[in-house]
C-alpha cells in the first residue's frame, strides 16, 4: 500500500522501548517503588510519541508492518501513519508528557496501599496501547491493541483495589469495555464477510449494506467513548482511578474511540450512510445535555468531571456527525469545519480535562477528600491549584479567549453553515436547534463550574481536612502549569491549529474557500482590549488601594454574629433552582423533614434532602445485571446431583435426537 519509511519508525520504536522495557525493569524493584526514573522514562516515551505524531505530517501516509513471525494468523501487525493518527499521537504524547511530572508526587500517597510495580507497568502499557490503537491499520491488529488498552486501563482503575467501591468500579468498567470489544468484533466480522478483507483501508461499504456492520462498530466505539446511553461506566470508573490515570483515561483514552470513529466513518469512510451522521449527531446532543445535567448535581469532584467528559464527547460527536451529514450532500466547507471543530475539541478537552483531573487529584491529596460538601476555602491554602483549576474551568466553559471557546465557536459555525447550506427545512431547523442546545449546555456548564470552583476553593472550609489542606508538591504544580499554559496558548493561536487541521481534513472534498478563511474572529483585538483594560484597572486599583486601604470585616450575617461554615450554601442548594427545572431528567426530588413535638410550627431541627437518580443505571442496567445474576444462580440447579436424573436426561436427549433424525429426509 505505502512504502515503509524509517523516519517515523524510529521514534515509535524508541517509545515502545521506553514504555515497555522500563516498567518491566520496575517489575524487579520493590513493591512500593516510586523512584523518579519511572516518571522520567514515561516522560521520554511520551515525547517520542509526540515526535512521531509531528513526523506523521511530514510525509505521505506510511504503512508499517511488523516483521515475521509476528502476526495474527490471517493478517500481520500493520500500522498506518497519516495526519489523522499523527494528530491523535500528538494528543496522546503531549498529554502523557505533561502528566508525567505529576505522577511521582501523587503516587507518594498511594504507594503504601498499592502495588506500584503493577501501576507503572499498566500505565506505560496504557499509553503505548493508546498510541498503537490510533495507528492500527487492520481489524485484528486493532482488536489486539484495543483489548490491551482495555486491560491495562482496567488494572489502573483497580490500582487501589482494597475499597470495595473501587473493585466494583473496575469490574463494571471491564464489563463495559468487553461488550464494546464484542460489538466491534461482530461489526468487523460482518464487514469481513461482506468485503473479504481485514484492512481498514480496503473497507468500502455504502448504503443499506453498511448499516448492520456500521451500527455494531458504532455501538462498540460509543461504549468506549462513554456516549449516552452507554456512558454508565464512565462516571463510575473515573473517580475510582488514581487522578493522573483519570486524567489520561478521560482526557485521552475516550478520544481514541473518536479517532477510530473519524477514520471509519468520516475521512474516506469505510461505512458510508447519512443515517450514521444523524445517529451520531442525535446521540451526541443527548450525551452533551445529559452529561452536563448530571455533572451539575454531583457531589464527588471527580465524578462531576467524569460527567463533563460525557458532555464534551457529545460535543465532539456533534461535530463528527455534522461532518458526515454535510459531506453526504457533496463537497462542502461545512464538513471540513465540523470535523476540524471535533478534532480541535478533542485536543482541547484532552488538555483542560486532564488539567481539571490533576487539580482534583491535588485537592484529594491536599484536603484528603473529594466530597464537595466537605471542601471549601482552598483558594487560600492551595493558591496554585486554585488558579490552574479555575483556568481549566474557564476553558471547559468555553469562555473566551481560552481554547475551549475556539473549538466550540467552530462548532457553532458548522451548525450555522449546515443550517445555511442545507435546503431541507428539517435539517435547517435541526441545525438551529443544535445551536440553542449548545448554548444551553454552555450555560449549564458555566453554572456547574461556578459551583465546583466556588464550593471547593471559595468560602470557608467545611471540614477539618479542608482547613488543614496543603498545596501540592512542585512536580504536581508543574504538570498543571504546563497544561494550563497550553490551554491559553491554544486559545490564542487557534489559526495555527487550524492550519494543521487543514492538512488532516484535506481528504474531505471542499468547494472553494479553505478552513483558515472560516476563522474570522477578531481575537487579536479582543485580547488587546482585555489586556489593556485589565492592566489599566490593575494599576488604578493599586494606586487607589494605596490611597484608601480596604477594611476587613465579617461577612454580612443579618446581625446574628459571625457565621460558621455550615451557614454557607452547599453544592446541593446551589444547583437546586436549575436541578428542579430539569427534575424529570434527573429524577430530582426534595424532601424536608422536621423533628420535634409540634414539628410543624416549632421544629427542633429541620433536614432537607435532595436526591437525584441516574435513570439508566437504576432502571435499565441495574435490573439487567441483577436478572443475569439471577439466571446464573438458577441455572446451577441443572447440576442437581442425582445420577438418575442425569441418565434420564440422556434418554430424553436420545429420543429427541432420534425424532429429529427421523423427521429428516
Amino acid at each position, binding site marked *: 500500500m505505502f512504502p515503509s519509511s524509517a523516519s517515523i519508525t524510529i521514534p515509535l520504536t524508541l517509545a515502545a522501548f521506553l514504555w515497555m522495557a522500563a516498567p518491566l525493569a520496575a517489575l524487579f524493584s520493590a513493591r512500593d517503588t516510586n523512584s523518579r526514573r519511572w516518571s522520567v522514562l514515561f516522560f521520554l516515551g511520551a515525547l517520542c510519541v509526540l515526535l512521531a505524531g509531528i513526523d506523521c505530517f511530514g510525509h505521505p501516509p506510511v504503512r508499517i508492518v511488523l516483521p515475521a513471525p509476528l502476526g*495474527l*494468523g490471517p493478517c500481520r501487525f500493520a500500522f498506518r501513519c497519516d495526519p489523522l493518527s499523527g494528530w491523535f499521537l500528538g494528543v496522546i504524547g503531549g498529554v502523557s508528557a505533561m502528566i508525567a511530572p505529576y505522577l511521582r508526587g501523587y503516587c507518594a500517597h498511594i504507594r503504601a496501599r498499592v502495588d506500584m510495580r503493577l501501576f507503572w507497568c499498566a500505565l506505560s502499557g496504557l499509553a503505548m496501547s493508546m498510541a498503537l490503537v490510533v495507528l492500527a491499520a487492520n481489524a485484528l491488529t486493532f482488536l*489486539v491493541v484495543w483489548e490491551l488498552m482495555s486491560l491495562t486501563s482496567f488494572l489502573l482503575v483497580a490500582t487501589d*483495589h482494597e475499597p470495595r467501591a473501587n473493585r466494583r468500579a473496575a469490574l463494571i468498567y471491564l464489563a463495559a469495555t468487553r461488550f464494546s470489544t464484542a460489538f466491534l468484533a461482530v461489526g468487523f466480522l460482518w464487514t469481513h464477510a461482506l468485503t473479504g478483507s481485514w484492512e481498514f483501508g480496503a473497507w468500502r461499504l455504502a448504503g443499506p449494506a453498511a448499516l448492520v456492520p456500521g451500527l455494531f462498530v458504532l455501538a462498540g466505539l460509543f461504549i468506549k467513548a462513554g456516549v449516552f446511553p452507554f456512558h454508565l461506566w464512565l462516571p463510575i470508573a473515573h473517580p475510582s482511578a488514581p487522578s493522573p490515570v483519570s486524567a489520561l483515561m478521560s482526557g485521552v483514552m475516550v478520544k481514541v474511540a473518536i479517532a477510530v470513529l473519524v477514520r471509519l466513518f468520516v475521512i474516506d469512510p469505510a461505512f458510508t450512510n447519512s443515517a450514521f451522521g444523524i445517529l451520531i449527531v442525535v446521540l451526541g446532543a443527548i450525551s452533551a445535555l445529559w452529561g452536563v445535567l448530571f455533572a451539575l448535581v454531583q457531589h464527588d469532584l471527580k465524578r462531576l468531571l467524569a460527567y463533563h467528559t460525557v458532555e464534551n464527547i457529545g460535543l465532539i460527536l456533534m461535530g463528527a456527525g455534522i461532518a458526515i451529514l454535510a459531506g453526504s450532500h457533496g463537497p462542502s466547507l461545512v464538513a471540513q469545519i465540523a470535523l476540524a471543530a471535533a478534532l480541535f475539541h478533542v485536543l482541547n478537552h484532552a488538555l483542560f480535562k486532564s488539567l481539571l483531573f490533576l487539580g482534583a487529584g491535588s485537592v484529594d491529596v491536599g484536603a484528603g477528600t473529594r466530597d464537595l460538601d466537605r471542601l471549601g476555602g482552598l483558594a487560600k491554602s492551595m493558591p496554585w491549584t486554585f488558579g490552574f483549576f479555575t483556568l481549566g474551568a474557564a476553558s471547559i466553559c468555553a469562555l473566551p479567549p481560552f481554547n475551549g471557546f475556539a473549538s466550540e465557536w467552530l462548532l457553532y459555525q458548522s451548525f450555522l453553515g449546515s443550517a445555511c447550506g442545507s435546503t431541507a427545512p428539517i435539517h435547517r431547523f435541526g441545525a438551529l436547534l443544535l445551536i440553542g442546545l449548545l448554548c444551553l449546555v454552555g450555560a449549564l456548564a458555566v453554572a456547574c463550574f461556578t459551583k465546583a470552583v466556588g464550593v471547593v476553593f471559595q468560602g470557608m472550609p467545611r471540614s477539618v481536612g479542608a482547613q488543614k489542606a496543603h498545596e501540592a508538591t512542585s512536580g504536581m504544580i508543574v504538570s498543571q502549569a504546563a497544561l494550563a499554559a497550553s490551554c491559553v496558548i491554544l486559545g490564542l493561536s487557534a489559526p495555527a491549529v487550524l492550519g494543521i487541521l487543514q492538512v488532516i481534513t484535506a481528504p474531505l472534498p471542499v468547494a472553494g474557500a479553505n478552513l483558515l478563511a472560516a476563522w474570522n474572529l477578531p481575537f487579536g483585538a479582543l485580547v488587546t482590549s482585555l489586556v489593556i483594560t485589565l492592566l489599566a484597572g490593575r494599576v488604578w486599583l493599586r494606586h487607589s488601594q494605596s490611597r484608601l486601604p480596604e477594611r476587613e470585616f465579617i461577612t454580612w450575617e443579618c446581625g446574628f454574629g459571625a457565621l460558621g461554615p455550615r451557614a454557607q450554601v452547599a453544592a446541593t442548594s446551589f444547583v437546586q433552582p436549575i436541578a428542579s427545572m430539569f427534575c424529570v431528567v434527573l429524577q430530582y426530588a426534595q424532601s424536608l423533614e422536621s423533628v420535634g413535638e409540634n414539628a410543624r410550627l416549632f421544629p427542633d431541627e429541620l433536614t432537607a434532602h435532595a436526591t437525584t437518580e441516574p435513570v439508566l443505571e437504576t432502571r435499565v442496567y441495574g435490573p439487567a445485571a441483577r436478572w443475569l445474576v439471577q439466571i446464573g444462580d438458577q441455572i446451577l440447579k441443572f447440576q442437581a446431583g442425582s445420577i438418575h436424573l442425569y441418565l434420564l436426561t*440422556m434418554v430424553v436427549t436420545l429420543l429427541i435426537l432420534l425424532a429429529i433424525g427421523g423427521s429428516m429426509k
Partner: protein
Amino acid sequence: MTLLAVLIPCPLLICILALAGRRRGVLPRLAAVAMGIHALIVAYFWLPRLHDSAIRVQELPVHGLNADTTGTFFVLVITLVALASFTHATGFFARESQVKRPPADRHISQFYFFAALFVLAMYVVVLADNLGYMWIGMEATTLLSAPLVYFHRSRHSLEATWKYLIICSVGIAFGFFGTALIYTASQHSGVLGDGSLSVLALTAHAHQLPAGLVRMSYVFLLLGYGTKAGLFPLHNWLPDAHSEAPAPASALLSGSLLNCALVAIWRVSGLAQAAGQGALVRVTLLPMAVITVVFASLCLIKQRDIKRLLAYSSMENVGIMAAAISLGSWPGFALQALNHSVCKTAVFLLAGNLLQRFKTKDIGEIKGLLNIQPGHTMLLLLGLAAVAGTPPFGSFLAEWQILSSAADQHRLWLVLILAAALAVAFIALALQAGSIAFGKHDASGKSIETADASASLILVPGVLMIVSLCLGIAFPMKALALIEGVLR
C-alpha cells in the same frame, strides 16, 4: 509403523516404574524425565509431518490406525499437555505430601500407572481410523481416567468417579450402537463387501451408504461421543469429575481428553457430511454446541468453586469447538483445541497450587491474592483472560477463526449469540478472578506457607502462558497455511 511405535515405550516405561517404584519422590521425577524424553521423541518424529504437505487424509491406514494431519496434530497436543501435567506433578505431589492427610505412595504410583496408560489410550482415539478402535480407545480412556478422578479417596471424589464412570460408559455404549449401525450401513452399501468400519473407506463410498442408517448411527455416535465431550444435556459428569480430580489429572482430562472426544465427533461428522447428511449435523450438533456455550457461560456467573468454574469454562470452549466442527471449520477447531489445551492446562495447574495453599476451593474464601503472591496472581489472571479468548492470546485467534467462518457463512445470529456468550463468560470469569485477586487478604485465613514451593509449580504454567501468547501474536504462518490446506 515407526511413527506408531515411538509413541509406546516411554509411557510403558512409566507404567513399569509405577509398578516397581515405591519410594516417595523418586517416581514423579523419573516419570517427568521419561515424559520429557517421550515429548522429545514425539516432537522429532511427528512434528515434521505437520510441515510435510504430502500427508493428507487419504494416506493409507496402518492396522486401522491412521496418522493423518488430524491425528498428527492431536498427538502433538496430547503430548504437550501430558508433558506439562507430568512435570507439574513433581512439585504437586511434593507439596501434596506435606498436607495433613498425605496420599499413600501406593496411590501415587497408581496415579502414574493409570495416567500413562490413559495417555496411550488417548493416542489410540485420535489416531484410530477404524471406528471400532476409536470406540475401544474412548471407553478405555474412561476406565483409565476414573482412578485418576478417585485419587483423593474422599467422599466427593468417590461420588464424582461413580457418576463419571456410569454416565460415560452408558454414553459410550450408545456410541457403540451407532458404530454397529454404521457397520450395517457399510454392509448395505454393497461396495464395501462384508462391511467396514474404516472412516476413510466409509467416507470414500459415503454416497452409497443408506441415508436412514447413516442418520440413525450419527445420532447415536453424537450422543455417545457428545457425552464424553460434555455437550449440553449430556455434560453432568464433567464438572464433578474435573473438579474432584487432582490438578494434574484435571489438566489431562480438560486439556486432552475433551479434545479426543471432539476429534471423534469431527471424524463422524465429516463422515455424515460426506454422506450428504450435513443438514442433520447442522440441526443436531450446532444447536447443542450453541446451547453448551450459552449454558456454560451462564454457569460461570455464580459458581463459587474454583475448579468447577474452570470445568464449566472448559465446557464453554468445548461448545465453541463443536460449533467449529458443525461449521466444518477445521482451522478453527484445531487452533481452538490447541489453545484451549495450553491455557486451560496452565489454569488448572495454577488452581491446583491455590487449592494446596488455601485448602479451599471456595472462591469466597480466597481474597487479596494480588497482595501476597503478585506473580502467581498475574499468571492466573492472564491465564483466565486467555481461557476467555482475550487478545493477544492464541485462543482469541482461534475463536476469531470460528466466528469469522460463521460470519462468512452469513450466520449473523450465530455470530451474535456466540459473541454475547463469550462476553458474558469473560465478564463472569473476570468477576471471579477479581474477587480472588483483589481486596484485602486476611492473614487469619487458613493459608499454609509451603516451604519448598518447587519451581515446576509456577514454571510450567508460566511457560504454557508464553506458548499461548506466542500462538497468538507469532503463530507460525506455515502451520496455519497447512491446517487450512487440509480443508481444500
